């Protein structure tokens, strides 16, 4: 057993849901108890998807366990096929489904449905979300782009180089915008995008994967297994450089251009503003700021390079919850003179941050909690993320535009340069003091006692009990409640506000 306060990754079947939800034309049937449908809201609420994930749950209950849960599963598969008519069906069990050993694979195949059925074996008590996503994607690719003995059709002379973009999923951190940004780079290089998968792809698209000249692994946690398979069976070379950051984007372009035999010079890949923003004198104060980095392997490694070489920070800690990429993260940390923290134990990460006392934490939603508790500035660089990290605006992490976005995102939580000086000069200034948050972040609470509100209009006094009652109102509407109550009291010529006045006013202004 492992004590877990927060978990960085969900169970592996949530990874399968991310693949199915990202794709078109597939449907996943999960043998899972009542309650596991919570995972739908990850997509409909956190990512604001406007359709339900293409997932059916058997939602068995205790009374079903005495009966025939296998029949329940078969019925669910048959009904789901009849209703949704997918091009392909995925079936698997969640953690409790795994324990009751109903054999979803055998049951689904026995139905003889007129669509391919891909059974997933996702060991819930050993593996986690990203592994589940990688395995699901790999099984789909294997099913629809099988190894063939037929020789590859030679490309017609003059045909453009083409590649597959592998790894983006539903609920991915900025996957939507990263794909758009990478596609722009490919267009600038006159390279064709053969298939983007799994995001937006159908099973028929997966069948076209072998047509490309190479694979771009955008997110190694998800696409590495499938890309290796395609390399093995279809001879597709793999581009592994994640184009996150100014230099990594340049490396990515160079690597791809070399593979495609294209000269990357004199082409426009977008406005790279990070270098100048970082060189401008205003950024001087960023020099040597101590940062702690934690996230999935790919994003953490990319962030370390940007932090040190592109913003001039000092990386004081680096870690990842991705055991699949532990070796790469360790190597990256070693190059920085650090020992990588490879763990999925939130408490261990918390202890490391508390110990290192960085000035900026670059992490996931979980590190945001830690930073909040410790009063340290924080920016999110990796999944798991919350609803505010799925923005409406275009906000890629990849490409030169991604580097621009990263500059802004990382600098924003910090106190501005000149303001730092004021804080240092006037320790007890009413506005610039130790406990004050950055002045452009109004929501940052100052740990100072809130001064008593300005006296109300006229001679109105709050009774102690009414004041206490007022304090129970959430802070974000408390000011409004105070104002309304006082206005109400003035209009009625009251001199003292009691609890009853507060509620009379509330009812008066109710709308």
């Amino acid at each position, binding site marked *: *057993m*492992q*004590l*877990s*306060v927060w*978990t960085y*990754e*969900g*169970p592996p*079947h949530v990874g399968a849901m991310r693949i199915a939800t990202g794709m078109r034309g597939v449907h996943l049937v999960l043998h899972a*108890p*009542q*309650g*596991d*449908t*919570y*995972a*739908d*809201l*990850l997509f*409909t*609420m*956190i990512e604001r*998807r406007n*359709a*339900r994930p293409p997932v*059916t*749950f058997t*939602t*068995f*209950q*205790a009374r*079903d*366990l005495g009966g025939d849960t296998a029949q329940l599963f078969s019925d*669910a598969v048959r*009904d789901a096929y009849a*209703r949704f008519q997918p091009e392909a069906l995925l079936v698997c069990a*969640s*953690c*409790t489904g795994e*324990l009751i050993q109903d054999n979803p694979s055998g049951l689904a195949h026995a139905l003889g449905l007129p669509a391919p059925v891909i059974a997933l074996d996702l060991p*819930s*008590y050993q593996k*986690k979300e990203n592994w589940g996503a990688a395995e699901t994607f790999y099984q789909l690719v294997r099913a629809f782009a099988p190894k063939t003995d037929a020789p590859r059709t030679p490309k017609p002379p003059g045909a453009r180089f083409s590649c597959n973009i592998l790894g983006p999923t539903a609920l991915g951190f900025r996957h939507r915008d990263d794909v758009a940004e990478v596609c722009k780079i490919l267009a600038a290089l006159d390279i064709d995008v053969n298939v983007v998968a799994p995001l937006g792809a159908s099973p028929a698209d997966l069948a076209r994967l072998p047509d490309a000249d190479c694979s771009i692994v955008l997110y190694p946690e998800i696409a590495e297994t499938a890309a290796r398979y395609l390399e093995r069976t279809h001879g597709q070379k793999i581009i592994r450089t994640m184009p996150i950051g100014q230099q990594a984007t340049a490396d990515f372009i160079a690597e791809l251009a070399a593979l495609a035999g294209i000269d990357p010079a004199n082409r426009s890949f977008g406005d790279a503003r990070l270098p100048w923003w970082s060189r401008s004198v205003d950024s001087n104060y960023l020099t040597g700021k101590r940062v702690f980095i934690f996230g999935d392997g790919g994003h953490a490694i990319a962030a370390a390079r940007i932090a040190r070489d592109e913003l001039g920070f000092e990386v004081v800690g680096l870690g990842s919850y991705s055991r699949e990429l532990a070796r790469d993260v360790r190597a990256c940390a070693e190059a920085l003179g650090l020992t990588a923290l490879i763990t999925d134990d939130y*408490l261990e990460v918390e202890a490391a941050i508390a110990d290192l006392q960085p000035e900026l934490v670059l992490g996931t*939603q979980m590190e945001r*909690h*830690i930073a*909040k*508790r410790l009063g340290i500035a924080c920016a999110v660089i990796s999944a798991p993320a*919350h*609803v505010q990290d799925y923005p409406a605006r275009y906000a890629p992490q990849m490409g030169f535009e991604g580097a621009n976005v990263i500059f802004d995102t990382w600098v924003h939580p910090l106190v501005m340069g000149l303001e730092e000086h004021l804080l240092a000069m006037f320790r007890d200034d009413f506005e610039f003091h130790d406990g004050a948050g950055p002045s452009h972040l109004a929501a940052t609470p100052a740990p100072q006692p809130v001064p008593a509100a300005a006296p109300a209009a006229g001679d109105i006094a709050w009774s102690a009990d009414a004041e206490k*009652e007022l304090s*129970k*109102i959430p802070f974000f509407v408390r000011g409004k409640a105070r104002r309304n109550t006082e206005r109400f009291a003035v209009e009625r010529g009251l001199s003292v506000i009691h609890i009853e006045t507060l509620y*009379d006013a*509330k*009812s008066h202004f*109710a*709308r």
Partner: protein
Amino acid sequence: MSLAAPDTSPAETTRPILRERGQREVFCGLTSIVWLHRKIQDAFFLVVGSRTCAHLIQSAAGVMVFAEPRFATAIMEERDLAGLADANDELDRIVTQLLARRPDIKLLFLVGSCPSEVIKLDLHKAAERLSAAHFPRTRVLNYSGSGIETTFTQGEDACLAALAAAAPRDDANNLLIVGALPDVVEDQFARLFAEIGIARTDFFPARRADALPPIGPSTRFLLAQPFLTDTTRALEARGAKRIRAPFPFGAEGATAWFQAAADAWSIPEMEFRRAIAPHRARAKRALESHRQALEGRSIFFFPDSQLEPSLARFLSQELGMRPIEVGTPYLNQTLLAEELAQLPADCVLSEGQDVELQLDRCRAAKPDIAVCGLGLANPLEAEGITTKWAIELVFSPIHGFDQAGDLAGLFSRPLRRRAALKV
């Protein structure tokens, strides 16, 4: 879950009930930990389960907002299942680790999950053992919040039923208000019961685990939440008597609820009316401003919290809304008898769920507003159906006179918003 002990309350409703079995798009009982851990300030909830359980609690209701939660999951791993590690030894180790880190914890709940139930891990025995080891500093209790046994709010029911066992048995002749309520509502209720003339009112659960109210044969209790089937049974097993009432939603619901307690204490009618009148008038006035937005509008409830029949009664009786279908995960006809009697005759009452069929009915009925879970809300909005997330009804102060207007506002706001948006 079964019905409460036989009762001589009004006969079961004669209304037909649509019972379906299919995919149930509902939370499991673990979800109620999200508000219970805020309510009982010195309690900690340790789920004994899988990574799915941990992921559920942090994802449900967007609770990734808590920086300092008092819940955690003991995640079972391959070696626990394979018997390589004795699950009980592992649990003891984790509890010791947890209590060392959080010495402020006075009450620890071991919460059972689907996997712990399926492998038949005996958490009751574990709680007894751990209580013996850590009492008096920390008491350890257990209940099941598993999805195979509980739906959403039934988690609170199971928790309170377990907690009842820890309450003192003194004879206090007290009025006990049962069900977790926001603190501000509790304070209002305490003041009003005092005004009515009831000498001692206690709340269950209490805000602190070491301040549990006495529960005994002279206790009479009033449910503040309709989903407390097992808790009712546990309290009755201690000799406490349930006061029958509808639930305190809206001016009428709250009046009848307070009246039921006043009658049980034989408070003269005039005194009761004098105490209640200004509150009732205030509630009515607050409701009036929402009437225009809601009157005549149709509403469709997907099953979620078991509050649905009570809310449908409130919205139809007090605001003139037209419930088309009132879905509930589980219908306790005894506890809800007073509410069911006041529901319009033409609305469909459904228990359980086949979400696909229910969505078909909802689309066909084109309600003005659908009340549903978070997994369904945005998809329905995208189809053009205005929705109210059901979970807000569990997370907001909605009980009693002074919240009547707020409760109506939860339903009128989505309609006003839809009318306001030009995009």
